[in-house]
């Protein structure tokens, strides 16, 4: 029998078909190599380009060679039009957006992929193989693949849009315990609904399309309510998770069309994305469940004693302190990114170096709002790579640091992570600025960081607060030092 099948497949063989398969193989190899290169600093950019080349190959080859039941791809004009449209819009958006808005952009593009996967499922449901239906009714693999693709794609689409809105400041957080229960209920409902549809037996798929639309709608709702209660600070993790969802949705398409490049591409991203999500959580010292279920920050917890007094410092004093210290460590945080003060930071650093001060930067892995945020910003300002210390290294040297300047950072230097087990950030590895001989904190006021908790470092004996927008404060300090 095996023979028979092979022979049938052989009869189906066409030159174009095999060229298509070969391009798909090449594309998959390029995806793998691209992903591999993307995970090493030196080769990352080239990796991205290789993957893009693979994608272009796969798309072009599909348009030229793909056949279904002996028919070539039709509507080519419209297809090329749609691709052109997508390309133009995509490039424009991607090129125009500010570096600080990168995470929401990734989320937006991710949502697009999810949406495409959902639409494909919607379109393909009525075309389920008659032979399969005669044999098993709707209880067959094709239906399962289509419905899962629909559900996962829609959740990914809706969730990504909400994540986008949140990061863009358009949507606030809804923190409510009820939503969590609703979410579990919705998920059960969705899965139950898929089982229900599949158990309908020998029906004509087009007759139950309304059920599929309901599934689509509920999935969208679930996507929204899944992301809604998660805090904005956790969005990078959520995006990474949704990213792997879209990967799986794309892979479902691979099953559907017996298309191995969709399958490998999708599953690679699905598994790599899952691991990446876990790695991100680890970097913030949290578990994935904690991110999804336990909303982070938001007033209630972590009551630090606010009785302490804070000590302010003037710009001239700060300048003197910095200029006459042998070793200075700069700790940048989210505030520096918002204030776009990275160039000034570099100016300060060069100035101090010229005056014989040893200046280093301490980069906390989750400083800012996305992983690698600080590295990207400091790199943008041309700060040499060898000046950047990773957390552990910085902490080892902290006791020898004369002045630690905390610029717009808060949570990442909050000693509560080490002292206070009830704190929402308890256990997160921090930069131990409190160990330095002197600390200067530059921020606008006594505003809280993303975790929304008080920071005892600001009340420390050794801490001097320099209030004001990071950019202005830095400018003043720089001017002061120049005039000395």
């Amino acid at each position: 029998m095996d023979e028979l099948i092979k022979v049938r497949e052989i009869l189906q063989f066409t030159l174009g078909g095999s060229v298509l398969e070969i391009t798909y193989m090449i594309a998959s190899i390029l995806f793998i190599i691209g992903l591999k290169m993307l995970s090493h600093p030196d080769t990352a950019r080239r990796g991205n380009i290789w993957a893009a080349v693979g994608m272009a190959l796969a798309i072009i080859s599909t348009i030229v060679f793909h056949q279904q039941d002996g028919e070539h791809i039709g509507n080519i004009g419209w297809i090329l039009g749609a691709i052109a449209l997508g390309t133009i819009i995509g490039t424009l958006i991607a090129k125009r957006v500010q570096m600080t808005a990168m995470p929401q952009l990734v989320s937006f593009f991710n949502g697009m992929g999810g949406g495409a996967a959902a639409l494909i499922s919607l379109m393909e449901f009525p075309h389920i193989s008659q032979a399969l239906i005669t044999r098993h009714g709707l209880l067959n693999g094709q239906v399962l693949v289509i419905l899962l693709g629909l559900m996962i794609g829609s959740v990914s689409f809706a969730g990504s849009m909400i994540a986008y809105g949140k990061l863009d400041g358009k949507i606030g957080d809804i923190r409510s315990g009820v939503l969590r229960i609703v979410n579990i209920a919705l998920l059960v409902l969705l899965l139950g609904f898929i089982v229900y549809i599949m158990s309908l037996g020998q029906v004509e798929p087009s007759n139950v399309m309304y059920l599929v639309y309901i599934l689509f709608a509920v999935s969208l709702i679930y996507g929204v309510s899944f992301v809604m209660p998660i805090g904005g600070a956790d969005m990078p993790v959520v995006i990474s998770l949704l990213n792997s969802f879209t990967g799986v949705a794309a892979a479902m398409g691979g099953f559907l069309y017996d298309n191995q490049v969709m399958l490998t591409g999708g599953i690679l991203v699905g598994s790599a994305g899952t691991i990446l999500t876990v790695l991100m959580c680890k970097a913030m010292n949290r578990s994935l469940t904690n991110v999804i279920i336990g909303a982070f920050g938001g007033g209630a917890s972590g009551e630090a004693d606010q009785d302490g007094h804070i000590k302010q410092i003037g710009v001239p004093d700060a300048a003197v302190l910095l200029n006459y210290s042998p070793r200075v460590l700069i700790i940048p945080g989210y505030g520096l990114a918002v204030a776009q003060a990275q160039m000034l930071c570099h100016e300060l650093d060069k100035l101090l170096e010229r005056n014989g001060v040893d200046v280093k930067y301490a980069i906390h892995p989750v400083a800012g709002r996305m992983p690698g945020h600080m590295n990207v910003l400091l790199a943008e300002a041309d700060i040499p790579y060898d000046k950047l210390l990773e957390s552990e290294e910085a902490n080892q040297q902290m006791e020898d640091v004369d002045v630690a300047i905390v610029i717009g950072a808060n949570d990442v230097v909050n000693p509560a992570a080490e002292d206070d087990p009830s704190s929402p950030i308890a256990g997160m590895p921090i930069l131990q600025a409190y160990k330095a001989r002197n600390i200067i904190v530059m921020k606008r006021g006594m505003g809280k960081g993303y975790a929304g908790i008080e920071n005892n470092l600001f009340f420390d004996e050794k801490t001097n607060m320099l209030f004001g927008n990071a950019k202005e404060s830095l400018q003043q300090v720089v001017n002061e030092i120049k005039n000395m």
Partner: protein
Amino acid sequence: MESILEFIYVHREMIFIVILSVFLGIEIISNVPSVLHTPLMSGANAIHGVVVIGAIIVMGHAETTLAMIFGFIAVVLGTLNVVGGFVVTDRMLGMFRNKQKRRS
């Protein structure tokens, strides 16, 4: 039950591909430095835009107007994912490419 087993049987090679891809994805990523989390996420994001191929197939064989419209939207969305994803990743990586080179 039988129909699930049948699905596995018929798609055994596809399932092997899935298994291998899962392990490969895990292996490839597991040592990535945290600096690269964001660009990597973004690059991976672009790769799953491969779903656009499905959209092209749908559209290429669309018979009704509804299918055409949905297909068109799907192709646009998929292309957005692919093109936007790669371009944005490239931009991000462009930011620290030179610095990284010095490191090696």
